């Protein structure tokens, strides 16, 4: 029998010379991606894993069995009920935002499996598509069992099919990143920025915390997914190595754009999970510290390796590591009925921890929490709407997220007149991304425009119930119904 190394290169490198069709018909720029890279140059495309289908199936079979075995032992309701309910809200957030996004990533990978301009790239993308299918199936299967106990877990599947404000923002991001991108943009945005840079926060940071919290099922699921991510993330650097020799400006532009867009998603999902939904006695590192290790150190080194510059908004980004997820958290608490997971008011221990980890940002944020505590002190327990926002809020016309950038002293939102209409952006990077490709974004309606044109109700209760699709049993509430042992009620 031939040894693997004797035939492996033939399997991966099956590029054919097209003599019956034009190159542009075989790889239309609209589908393969516009670039100045000569066709022959793509044939240098390489990555380290060099896996074949037989090996792939063998490895994945073991991984699936391993997750199934853990689920059988730890996935029962009696085990989940033992886990701190605060943590489970992070799981509900994670599962909703990432599960069907993984499913959308199947499409992005399949586009590269057809239109990537080298056979090894196409080959690895096909495995990437199979990976992503598994990444959607695992959480769907695991979370499904919990729905009968807690209907909020239903949002693992329901989320992207709803008009919830976070789902609108999520779709805006996912549609562009995974469904619209050509294989070049997909490789840089998804495989390089998203998977090489940011997913370490999830798969290393959050996994470690899950183990500490005692959620070994979630930790196992993340670990299993991570091994796939490490492999197909290699598509990104392999594309960059070739593209950068011919069109460095394009690489830089895509890195700048997708770093910002990815950052906002991770700040909300991972930032809240680490700093708010991890019980304070289990928090070893803050989200900021994870960001410093994995992003400002490691990812920056990776950029240097390719002689790429830091994104142009780097100073603003560093400031937002301190503030953004805290601004979102305190805002979202006051609109918690618009989410499908529960919230809590940070305890005195929590607030002490935040003050230590975020000495610059926390004093301003803490004042807002103090006002919320003041409201609860004057409200009977469980009267949720008395301590809840009733005025509709603004959303960024690019990222579709709440206007929470900057600091409490100076919000960073920018209004810009475009074609005689005012558009609002949560930050300068979002404005610049919009201005660079207005044709991509101009027809998308944010929640405010949906309200103003009568598509969505302006009344917050009706908006939550009829437009965001949150039934009373699914709506986010205060985990303790406003009744905290440390909170003295006023008479």
């Amino acid at each position, binding site marked *: 029998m031939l040894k693997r190394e004797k035939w492996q290169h033939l399997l991966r490198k099956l590029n054919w010379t097209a003599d019956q069709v034009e190159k542009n018909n075989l790889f239309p720029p609209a589908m393969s991606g516009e670039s100045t890279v000569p066709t022959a140059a793509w044939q240098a495309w390489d990555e380290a894993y060099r896996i074949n289908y037989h090996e792939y199936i063998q490895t994945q079979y073991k991984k699936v069995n391993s997750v199934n075995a853990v689920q059988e032992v730890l996935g029962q309701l009696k085990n989940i009920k033992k886990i701190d309910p605060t943590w489970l809200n992070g799981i509900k957030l994670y599962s909703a935002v990432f599960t069907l996004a993984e499913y959308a990533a199947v499409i992005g990978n399949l586009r590269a499996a057809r239109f990537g301009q080298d056979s090894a790239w196409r080959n690895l993308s096909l495995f990437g598509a199979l990976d992503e299918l598994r990444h959607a199936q695992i959480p769907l299967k695991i979370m499904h069992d919990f729905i009968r106990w807690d209907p909020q877990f239903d949002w693992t599947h329901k989320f992207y099919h709803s008009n919830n404000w976070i789902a609108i923002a999520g779709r805006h991001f996912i549609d562009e990143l995974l469904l619209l991108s050509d294989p070049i943009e997909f490789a840089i945005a998804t495989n390089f920025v998203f998977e090489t840079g940011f997913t370490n926060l999830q798969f290393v940071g959050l996994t470690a915390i899950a183990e500490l919290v005692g959620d070994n099922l979630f930790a196992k699921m993340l670990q299993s997914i991570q091994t796939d991510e490490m492999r197909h993330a290699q598509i990104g650097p392999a594309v960059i190595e070739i593209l950068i020799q011919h069109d460095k400006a394009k690489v830089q532009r895509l890195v700048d754009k997708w770093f910002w867009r990815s950052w906002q998603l991770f700040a909300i999902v991972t930032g809240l999970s680490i700093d708010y939904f991890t019980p304070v006695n289990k928090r070893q590192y803050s989200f900021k510290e994870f960001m410093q290790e994995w992003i400002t150190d490691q990812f920056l080194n990776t950029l240097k390796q390719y002689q790429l510059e830091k994104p142009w908004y780097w100073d603003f980004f560093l400031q937002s590591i301190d503030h953004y997820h805290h601004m979102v958290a305190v805002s979202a608490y006051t609109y918690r009925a618009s989410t499908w997971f529960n919230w809590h008011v940070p305890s005195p221990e929590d607030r002490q921890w935040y003050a230590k980890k975020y000495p610059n940002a926390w004093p301003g944020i803490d004042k807002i929490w103090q006002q919320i505590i003041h409201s609860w002190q004057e409200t009977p327990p469980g009267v949720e709407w008395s301590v809840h926002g009733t*005025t*509709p809020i603004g959303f960024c016309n690019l990222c579709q997220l709440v206007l929470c950038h900057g600091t409490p002293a100076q919000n960073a939102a920018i209004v810009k007149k475009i074609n005689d209409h005012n558009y609002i952006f949560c930050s300068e990077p979002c404005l610049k991304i919009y201005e660079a490709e207005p044709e991509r974004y101009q027809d998308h309606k944010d929640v405010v425009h949906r309200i103003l044109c009568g598509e969505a109700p302006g009344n917050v209760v009706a908006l939550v119930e009829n437009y965001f699709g949150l039934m009373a049993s699914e709506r986010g509430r205060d985990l303790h119904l406003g009744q905290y042992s440390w909170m003295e009620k006023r008479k």
Partner: protein
Amino acid sequence: MSHQMLPVYGFVEGDALGVLLLIYSDDTIEKVIQNLQQAVKIRVPAQIGMSLFYEGKILDTQITVNQADVEPLCRLDLRHQK
């Protein structure tokens, strides 16, 4: 005097987000300030001595939205004078 509804984005110093405020063209700026403070009171207590800024300028509390030439979907900031 016209009575047209105007959606604007309101930002209050000390708050964490921007809200959508529906105001009327014949509302006085004083009324807009009160509405904005009411909209965010769950996060920021109403304070005296704050001014409403539009495009970098303080708006006189006695004039109307119409007189202030406030545009739909503009940014209004309620903050202390620096």
